[in-house]
């Protein structure tokens, strides 16, 4: 079992804590995305796993192999992992064949075995023909594939990818996503993928670890991140949720409860372990629905702006009530939007109480 385990890993540069006691696991064959805004420490975490940085404290293991422990680090060249760089890092003075063959040559594989393995790796990424080219004769997508082939040729158990799609244009990025997924399944390796693009992470990964200010905020399946964000950062970073103050009243079942919001009680989904009292509520734009005409049972608010979004309209509404003027909710409507300044009524279809208040 080659399972990647990080336990309480920390790394500081000067006075800034780039990685702050991170505990994280990746199962064998899992596609795990490390998602976060720039400067959140995700690249440092990747470099810690690769061995280019040493942790100040904590333990990094890959299966039985100890990668790093405070003060000790297995050099990168002995970790037997693959890495794809954002710049692809193809050696410009070597042909595609020699780029892919490099790691095999290091392992003293020669002759026909070398040729067979390079060919196989290139075919796996769909580049059988181009082995005589130089990297500067390739397109961005082709370079990306060569970079992948180079690390797959060694059949690593773990592949680290640092924003590998960031330098591709949008169309290429989508097709590469599908390719990446296929290659990962076929190779059976664990992929750890750093990105700041949440839609990329959502569509590729089995699981996403959201990182902010050096800490793992939440590591969960994409749908769970969206439906049950563990922190306010995750709630606002994933799918732009609005975060509101409410008062938790009581549980209705194990997973639902009543919350007092702007003088009205609403039913929302809840995590376990809440105590009655102030809470933070995460609302998505599709959790709210406009009511027809004047409907006193709903909430009221004023439309601030309307913006056309292709499939429908997005409304900015400030609710009338305790927090009037300070909060802005987003609502989706399919057609015939009200105009700015108009008073509207809406109801809450769903919501989620964020478990921890920082």
């Amino acid at each position, binding site marked *: 079992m080659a399972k990647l385990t990080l336990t309480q890993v920390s790394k500081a540069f000067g006075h800034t804590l780039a990685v702050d006691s991170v505990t994280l696991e990746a199962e064998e064959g899992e596609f795990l995305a490390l998602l976060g805004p720039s400067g959140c420490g995700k690249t440092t975490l990747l470099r810690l796993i690769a061995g280019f940085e040493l942790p100040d404290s904590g333990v990094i293991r890959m299966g039985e192999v100890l990668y790093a422990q405070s003060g000790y680090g297995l*050099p990168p060249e002995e970790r037997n992992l693959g890495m794809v760089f954002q710049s692809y890092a193809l050696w410009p*003075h070597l042909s595609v064949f020699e780029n892919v063959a490099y790691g095999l040559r290091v392992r003293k594989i020669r002759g026909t075995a070398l040729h067979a393995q390079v060919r196989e790796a290139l075919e796996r990424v769909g580049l059988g023909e181009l082995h005589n080219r130089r990297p500067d004769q390739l397109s961005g997508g082709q370079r990306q594939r060569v970079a992948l082939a*180079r690390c797959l040729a060694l059949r690593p158990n773990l592949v680290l990818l640092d924003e590998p799609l960031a330098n591709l244009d949008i169309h290429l990025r989508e097709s590469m996503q599908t390719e990446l997924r296929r290659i990962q399944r076929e190779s059976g390796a664990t992929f750890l993928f750093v990105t700041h693009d949440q839609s990329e992470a959502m569509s590729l990964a089995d699981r996403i670890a959201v990182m902010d200010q050096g800490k793992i905020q939440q590591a969960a399946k994409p749908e769970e991140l969206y439906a049950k964000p563990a922190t306010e950062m995750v709630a606002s970073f994933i799918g732009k949720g609005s975060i509101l103050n409410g008062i938790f009243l009581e549980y209705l079942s194990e997973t639902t409860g009543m919350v007092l919001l702007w003088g009205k009680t609403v039913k929302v989904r809840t995590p376990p372990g809440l105590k009655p009292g102030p809470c933070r509520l995460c609302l998505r734009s599709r959790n709210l629905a406009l009511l027809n005409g004047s409907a006193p049972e709903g909430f009221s608010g004023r439309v601030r702006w309307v913006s056309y979004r292709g499939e429908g309209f997005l409304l900015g509404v400030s609710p009338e009530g305790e927090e009037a003027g300070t909060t802005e909710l987003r609502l989706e409507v399919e057609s015939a939007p009200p105009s700015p300044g108009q008073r509207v009524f809406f109801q809450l279809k769903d919501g989620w109480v964020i478990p921890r208040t920082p």
Partner: protein
Amino acid sequence: MRRFVLPRDRGLYALLGGLTFYLVVITAWPLGRLLAEVFLSVKGNPPFVKEVLSSPASIRALKNTSDAAFWASALSVLVGTLGALLVTLTDIRSKRILSFLILLPMLIPSQITALAWKMMVDFVSKPGSPNPLYSREGVILVLGIEHSTLVFLSVRASLQGLSWDLVEAARVLGARPLRITRTVILPLAAPGIMAGFALSFVAGIGNFGVPALLGIPGKFPVLTTLIYRKLNGFGPSVLGETAILSLVLMGLAGLGLSIRSIASRRVSAAHTKTQSNRSLFPLGTYRLPVDGVVILFYLCISILPLLSLAATSFVPAVGVLLTPDTFTLGNYRAGLSQDAMVRAFSVSLKLSAFTAFLCVGVSIPLAYCAAIRKVPLSHVLVLLADAPYAIPGIVVSISMILAFLKPLPLLGSLYGTAGILFVAYASRFLSLALMPTLAGAEQFDRDLEEAAAAVGGRTFRRLRTIVFPSVLPSAFSGGLLVFMAALNEITVSSLLWSSGTETIGVMIYAMHYEGNSPQAAAISMISVLIVLTIALTISHLGKSLPEGVIPWRS
């Protein structure tokens, strides 16, 4: 984005006209005069040209020049590349000290370096036996060490620009540092190494101080010393002959310079400006021994010769060991009490100061035209300004004699006066002031000037009030570089000095030649101290200067 271009006003034309006139007088005309001289002899008197070129002395000097420059450059590449690799790739300790030790040879004038090495060897060799540095090998060794700094700077720049992902990608694949150095780093740094080799080669063929001090007594003549001895022995009557020889020298330099420009054009995709955290190669258990050996090695080649020089300057005669009993300040007292020496200091200090001022004064408007206004013609002017520093100094001297031997209207002949030294220095060292000034001007925000133009400021007013203050710090450090180089200059002054206008470099050489080595050492020590003080001043100023202004910083 296309920028708003200021109208080509009259002020700018006046500026360009003035600069063009100046550069034609001090550079284009003398160099053109040299070319014309050689061209005319080829056309008018082919047997003479053939005789000069086929004489055994010329052939021997040409062979020796290429031989010494080639092997010295090979040595420079070895020493300089090793230093650059250690400083940029590994986690070796005391990088600051190491960089300083590697850069030191560049700051010390070559005749003093040669003198210092000779004295170091004197301390260890048997008294009476000829100094082994008085030989081909001695010239190669000292030239190679002296110019290793050029290779170091070139390779270091190349390595610092290297995209570090390329190295880390190899590490992830399991390659060890030595393998990565061989298969990834060295191939990608090859243009930098080649450029360094070419620079060192050009510097080697043009060098005068080392072959003059070690090669002349060692019966190892090179082109520069051959030209020097001919002109010194026979005076202007052999000008035609030396002009042909100096053109041969220029041909060799041209070869080196074109290799360099080919190499620097091969800046590949492997280079990037943005650098993230670099994971250096850990020396691990070897760190302590590597530290020790490397520091010791560079101490031996950088500091030990200077210490020998210092030791010699404090003893009464060469070969006497420095002890409390033998210690004397007599050499300093005797050296400085000579009228000729006092005069030489005064000549060199004045010449250097005036040259520095003039070069800064020309550099600022030239940089303004080239880097800020980007006038097309100005690139030709920059090329013209850089040329005398790129070619061997002795070629500049010959062209100056050719151009200024005949009396000029109003001024009379400049030959035999300090005037010709001044013109030659102004021509040769302009590049040293211009390079940092251009680097500073590149950083200048054009909006500032356009804002001044928008409220009605004319070219000269803008130049004085807006451009000048912001470019001055860079230009000033360029001026210090000029001062430093001119103060210890020997190549140009050895041909152009006359009685009463000896420079420090000429005096040190003369003293050594007359056998008064301890006094030569004492004067050299004073020179070295002045140079190091200026270098420290520049480094200190450098903290607030833009990138590229200080040649030894990256």
